[in-house]
């Protein structure tokens, strides 16, 4: 039972490259925290610093109430699942599972009980006598999880554990790991998880909270719904959600109702948006609107942008439209049921953004300036 705290944690490499810029992160006891970000954002480095495989050059890491900065990985009360499983190739599955306990001189009966318990939970009972090279990817993955589970650590660390599996297996392992976490939580065993991934689907579906990282900085930490609906900055807005949020440079005028101008076309919004904007805003802003939040409207409707459809992707349940509005590429997703090829016969389209789902970002700082204060 332990929480995990990172306080101003820094990592500077020998060649004075600063990989992690003083990050603060608080993972609550029993929480499933996902670190997500593009490659090179230092999410794996952060995880390895928590594990103790990488030294930290500044700040403090706490697990429970003890500072673990200078503890070796074995004494930190953590267990880790590696991307390529890192099973010991010369040991049978059974010995792979029990290695950590043997090193800690756990009594034999306890080890046997642990192996039995873990192999029951993960359904790897028949694999115990096999060598890692005789396992399939999914099986090796389960053994790797088992090796972490058997140690009953305070914090579980996962380093992109599903990235070597095929799509179908990945989906089922995702569910399995989430279920496992719930089970642990219910049985009141320690179940704090830090999970690194670059896949936003994994992040959104598995995490209690998600920590979005970029270039060694934390961009936002929030639960999936907040992250999707209230991104604090342009980066998070663009990173979370698929297809990506449209981010378009626009002009805002506030003579009366707020009006957004994009390449000569002006759309006027109402009080909802006005109430979210503070008084002193510049004129040039970046408008962010998700593809799902642009509505196709009839050509007579006012307060909509006109564009030309350049490309259509019919996916079945939904349709992706690629639209050019005044030279800017905009993606729009409409439900498949509403789609009829004839409605795009001349390529002209009129799109109205949902006022309540519209975001405005400061183009210089990237901060979202349209979040209401509540």
């Amino acid at each position, binding site marked *: 039972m332990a929480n995990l705290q990172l306080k101003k944690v820094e990592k500077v490499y020998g060649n004075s490259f600063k990989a992690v810029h003083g990050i603060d992160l608080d993972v609550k006891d029993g929480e499933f925290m996902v670190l997500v970000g593009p490659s090179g954002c230092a999410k794996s480095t952060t995880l390895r610093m928590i*594990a*103790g495989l990488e030294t930290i050059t500044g700040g403090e890491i706490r697990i429970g109430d003890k500072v673990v900065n200078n503890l070796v990985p074995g*004494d930190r009360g953590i267990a880790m699942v590696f991307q*390529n499983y890192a099973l*010991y190739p010369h040991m049978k599955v059974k010995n792979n599972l029990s*290695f950590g306990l043997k090193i*800690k001189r756990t009594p034999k009966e306890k080890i046997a009980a642990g192996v039995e318990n873990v192999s029951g939970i993960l359904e790897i009972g028949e694999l115990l006598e096999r060598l890692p090279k005789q396992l399939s990817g999914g099986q090796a993955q389960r053994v790797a999880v088992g090796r972490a589970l058997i140690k009953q650590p305070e914090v579980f660390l996962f380093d992109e554990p599903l990235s070597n599996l095929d799509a179908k297996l990945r989906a089922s392992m995702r569910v399995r790991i989430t279920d496992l976490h719930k089970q642990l939580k219910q049985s009141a065993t320690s179940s704090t998880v830090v999970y690194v991934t670059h896949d936003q689907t994994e992040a959104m579906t598995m995490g209690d909270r998600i920590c979005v990282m970029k270039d060694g900085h934390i961009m936002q930490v929030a639960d999936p719904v907040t992250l999707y609906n209230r991104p604090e900055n342009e980066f998070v807005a663009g990173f979370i959600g698929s297809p990506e949020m449209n981010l378009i440079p626009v002009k805002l005028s506030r003579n009366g109702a707020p009006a957004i101008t994009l390449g000569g076309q002006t759309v006027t919004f109402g009080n909802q948006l006005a109430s979210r904007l503070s008084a002193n805003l510049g004129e040039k802003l970046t408008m962010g609107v998700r593809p799902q939040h642009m509505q196709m409207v009839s050509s007579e409707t006012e307060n909509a942008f006109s564009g030309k459809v350049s490309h259509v992707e019919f996916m079945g349940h939904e349709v992706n439209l690629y639209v050019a509005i005044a030279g800017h590429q905009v993606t729009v997703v409409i439900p498949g049921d509403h789609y009829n090829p004839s409605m795009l016969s001349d390529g002209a389209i009129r799109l109205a953004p949902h006022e309540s789902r519209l975001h405005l970002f400061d183009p210089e700082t990237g901060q979202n300036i349209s979040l209401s204060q509540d």
Partner: protein
Amino acid sequence: MTSLANQPQTLLEQARAHNARTRRNQMISTVVRYGILAIVGFIMLYPLLWLVGASFKTNAEIFASPSFIPENPTLEGYQRGWDTSTRWNFGHFFLNTLWIIIPKTIGTAISATLVAYGFARFEFPFKKILFATVIATLLLPNVVTRIPQYLLFRDLGWLDTYLPLWVPSALAGDAFFVFMLIQFLRAIPRDMEEAARVDGANTIQTLVFIVIPMLAPAIISVCLFQFMWTMNDFLGPLIYISSVEKYPVSLALRLSLDVTEAFQWNQVLAMSALTLAPSLIVFFVAQRYFIEGISTGGVKG
């Protein structure tokens, strides 16, 4: 009409003839290739075969015929050669050789593994310079260091003991082995060792339980090389060992060359054949690991 009807048959026959010709050509080419290989192989093996054959000949016959099949096979060479002209028989010298080889091989395996592990996996001050030094000793001709080494060991009072033969190897003095193991280790991903550290293993436990089992093929190769090279080493014992009692076989072989005036060639050859045997046997027994150890060194992903 008839010509048209017959045409398919002619075509079929032509095709069959063509196939037969191709098969025949392939056969001839195979025979020629293997023939050449066999002849060249035989030429290369001939000195060895001759050695074994001649060891069963009488002294008179050895230089009389170039054939390796003895006319009157005799074991005299083996019997007399085994007894030697000294107080000790050849078995004693074999034991001496083993007494040199076994500690040396064990020492090499342990020290080279430790040093290679250090270089391949840890960062420490002056690592680059130290590694360059190791590689430099690899490039340095052995002869260059003989005299300084001799002086050093003389001052330590180690002359006429096996220490000058054991100690350098037990301190990872054989840069080649260190280099070979480093290359092998570099090809093994670190994840397993990191997993072991997370599992609570310290550096030595990681080395013993995780690294050495994965490194086993390379370590076996190192042992084999060291075994064979030490078995065949002549110069080392010649320089440091002076009392006949402590001679290994490589020196004992030479012994039969200077004590008698007329060389008993069949004795020398018989003992040479015996001396070759251990290396050959060890090589064939461990061939699988040997090849695995060398070939996977650079390319294993």
